[in-house]
């Protein structure tokens, strides 16, 4: 059967990673549009929260110790920081320039990366944030209000129909719906099958196709998933390079070079410019930065 714990663990071994149980460390990101980083850190430390700087993202901290929920402090409610897993802080940081740009956050809810983008843009330019599920948009808009984001327009729209907006974007973040990973989902092994993974991969290809249509000629597209499955990641990027006239830029960030040989199938060499993050200090993750070729 193409599912279950042993099936997936064996796959990871074939990809070069030995399974180990990982407990994710909670992380935050300081919203520097609302306060100075050092001031926020001092305030949290004075509450007895022990922080550890995340070395590979700006303004990110792991929570080493907190005697209460970090989602219920005055500082959180004032939007001075967001709770955002460490690896999830990487995709928005990969764009070369964001200030003043027109940015699409294609699958935006619950909004952690949208707020991060607004923060990196210093509330300049504009973000168009989409999500298909209206109930998830409420969480997104609460997040925007709490963090004093001013440069975002939110639509309830399937990103596969984003060309309806009749806009060309300088930067697109496609944090695609994916198969997820076992670190953040205790029952992941019990509920995932390879058929689910393949179905998600098809959806991601549809999204990538639409994103390519609305990306400006010199624009940047960052693709990310929190999946360890190559169908969601390397295999889709290989397909995008071969079918969508995209090229992969080097993602200069935390993580291992992505795999160019998947279960004996040789992929295009550009794939190694992507980053695959096996669970260790973070959850599993994958990032890729693309531009239009030629």
């Amino acid at each position, binding site marked *: 059967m193409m599912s279950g714990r042993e099936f997936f663990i064996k796959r990871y071994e074939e990809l070069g990673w030995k399974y180990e149980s990982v407990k994710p460390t909670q992380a935050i990101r300081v919203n520097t549009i609302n306060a100075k980083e050092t001031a926020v850190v001092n305030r949290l430390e004075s509450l007895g929260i022990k922080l550890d700087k995340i070395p590979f993202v700006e303004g990110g901290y792991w929570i080493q110790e907190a005697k209460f929920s970090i989602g*219920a402090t005055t500082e959180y409610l004032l939007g001075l920081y967001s709770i955002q897993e460490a690896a999830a802080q990487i995709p928005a940081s990969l764009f070369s320039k964001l200030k003043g740009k027109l940015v699409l956050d294609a699958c935006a809810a619950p909004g952690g990366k949208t707020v991060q983008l607004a923060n990196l843009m210093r509330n300049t330019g504009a973000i168009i944030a989409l999500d298909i599920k209206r*109930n998830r*948009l409420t969480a997104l808009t*609460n997040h925007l*209000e709490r963090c004093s984001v001013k*440069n975002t327009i939110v639509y309830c729209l399937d990103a596969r129909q984003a060309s309806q907006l009749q806009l060309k974007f300088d930067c697109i973040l496609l944090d695609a719906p994916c198969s997820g990973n076992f670190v953040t989902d205790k029952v992941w092994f019990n509920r995932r099958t390879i058929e689910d993974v393949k179905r998600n991969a098809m959806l991601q290809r549809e999204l990538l196709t639409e994103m390519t249509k609305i990306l400006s000629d010199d624009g940047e597209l960052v693709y990310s998933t929190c999946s360890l499955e190559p169908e969601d990641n390397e295999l889709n990027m290989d397909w995008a390079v071969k079918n969508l006239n995209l090229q992969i830029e080097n993602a200069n960030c935390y993580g291992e070079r992505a795999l160019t040989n998947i279960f004996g199938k040789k992929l295009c060499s550009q794939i190694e410019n992507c980053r695959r993050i096996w669970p260790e200090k973070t959850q599993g993750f994958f990032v890729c930065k693309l531009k239009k070729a030629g």
Partner: protein
Amino acid sequence: MLKLIADFASRYNARINLDEKFVLKKDNKYFLLNNELKKLISKDFFYAGEYLGKTRKGRFFPSFNLLRMIAQVEANKISVNEKAAWLFICGRDIFRQGIVKVVGSNEKGDYTLILNHHGECLGFGMIQRHLYGKGNEVSVRNILDIGDFLRRESSTY
């Protein structure tokens, strides 16, 4: 459209200047856009720019963005100590002993913003009795506090 917001601000003895052409109404909600967003927006948006508040049954309910804007101008404000600030965020009223500083009105029935010792706006309430009187009674009744974000989350998910 702006009269509603101006009237709300006036309950804090505050005046805020919003340019009507940048204020957009969608259903019962009001949003403040900037030039960039105004050029891009289409009519079926869900949320845009700075959310200002909403009306329900003829009453105006402000957003925290709007309260922050009012807090930046001359308005009724009280600063409270750390304990009172925390209790306020938890939905409690302000007792006289928790008040550190009063700016503006002392009049019963007026609205006042509640600030912490960092000068950050935690919400607003209605003055119940003279803020400098004797005794330790409820002086400001909590109407809206930032703990609302947590209450909303529990009703969203």
